């Protein structure tokens, strides 16, 4: 994978969870009920997407073509 394609993939795959956490899409998670794992749905929604984001970044790092680059200077 080329560097520019990776950058595009990075922006898109992390942009999606971000958009789900701001309006207008945040409306999906913006409710007090049901209570999930002891938390109101809005709180659960934000924490869930942060954990998913964390997993996405981990996956992206694994396929990053430049992750082991040594600098030329």
């Amino acid at each position: 994978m080329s560097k520019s394609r990776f950058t595009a993939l990075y922006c898109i795959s992390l942009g999606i969870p971000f958009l789900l956490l701001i309006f207008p899409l945040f409306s999906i998670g913006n409710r007090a009920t049901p209570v999930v794992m002891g938390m109101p749905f809005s709180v659960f929604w934000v924490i869930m997407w942060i954990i998913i984001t964390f997993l996405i970044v981990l996956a992206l790092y694994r396929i990053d073509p430049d992750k082991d680059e040594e600098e030329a200077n």
Partner: protein
Amino acid sequence: MADWQIAMIMMIGYLVIALIVGVMAGRGHDKNSLDEFTVAGGGLGLVVMWFLMGGAVFSAFSFLGAPGWAFSKGAPALYILTYTAFAILPWYIIGPKIGKIGRKFNIYTVAGFMKKRYGGKTLPILIGVIALLASIQYLATQMKGMAYIFNIMTEGRIPLWLGALLAYGIVVVYVATGGLRAAAWSDVFQGLLMIIISWVVGLAIVNQIHGSVGEMFTNLVRDNPQFLEIGNEGSTMSGTAYTTTILVSLIGFLMWPHLFSKSYASNARTIKKTVLVYPIFALFLIPLLFVGFSAVNVVNPADVGAPDEILPYLITTVLSLPGWVYGLVGAGALAAAMSTADAITHSASLEFTDGVIKNMKPDLPDKTTLFLMRAGVFVVGGLAYVITVFGGQGLIALLLGAYGSIVQFAPGVYGALYSKKVTGPAVITGLIVGTFVNYYYQLVAETTPFDIHAGILGLICNLIIVIAISAFSQQKSGEMAEKYRNIG
């Protein structure tokens, strides 16, 4: 021994350890090297870098402000989690690139980065001045947090001026002697301390008041469901305000000189790995939000001076916790404030020296520059202290305006990284207009159009101006623009 005595002994013990860690970290490295003082020789490792970035976010605001937001505003406090988790992510892409540009052209500040690309002296001087004022504002908030925590945990026996002087004095000493490396190692120690404290004490408070987190929220959902939603009837913040607040914090985050300049202090691989593990920092903040929620319907807001005082209030007044918990929370809050203050004091001194002094008086030898930066640590520290303790209203308004203006660096920075069309005059005009618009809506106007955050309004104007003027003005630094764009 009385609770306050135990607390005071623990907090002073903490300060002594913080001083030793800070001073020791700087030892064994070249004291006369400009490179060492500014970017720790470009060789900070992963764990240190992670805490350095994390410590800067875990500030007095997260320790005192996050519970305060949850207590007084409810669900909008979630913005803190969202922005902390996402704000670092662009660094994965731009951090290594900024680092390479910095090493190639020997740059260690935001002002230097902009000067090299856009030329001229106006822009770096402007950036140096805004960065200095904004940093002083940031420091004043941290120092108020430190002074306040000392005061309340010793039940009023240590006055505000003394608490601020003790805690911040130590920061100034280790930053001036050890530079970035001292700040970084102190942050590792302080970061660990506040993470442990926020989880242990935070969850203990929730359990003591409500039995468990689940029970607390079940009650809250039953009694005031609107409190856990945003922008609906009965909520405390509109959807637009919530979204634009997240956006402005997110875009502004990496523009802060103390974070931007960390790109120079590490290689691409460390930067990427730092980003990788960073969202966990957002999760560390969760118990602090829970503490705020736990006080809703338990504490009458009128009894607490300000929402930010809810955590100490719970500990000292509502719950009868033993003295060593006072001490632990005191130390944790001090750690949070100090680990932010050290990085900011360091970078404010760098930006001002590099942006303003070196452009007014070029051809300074490295040795003098280093001396100025070291002396600058004391000057910045002294100014921030005097303003915190004696500051007047007009001055505070000026600083608040500057604080909101950091995000206005963004068009210039991204323009430098990815465009060869953006020109110096465009960036300067955009920065001035954006700052002005932000200033107007933040401090003069009562409301903003559509409830959009003042910083975003400024940024929109800024961006339009940068694009428009760049289209009509001649690119004078074409060669450098090409180099910036192609690196990385």
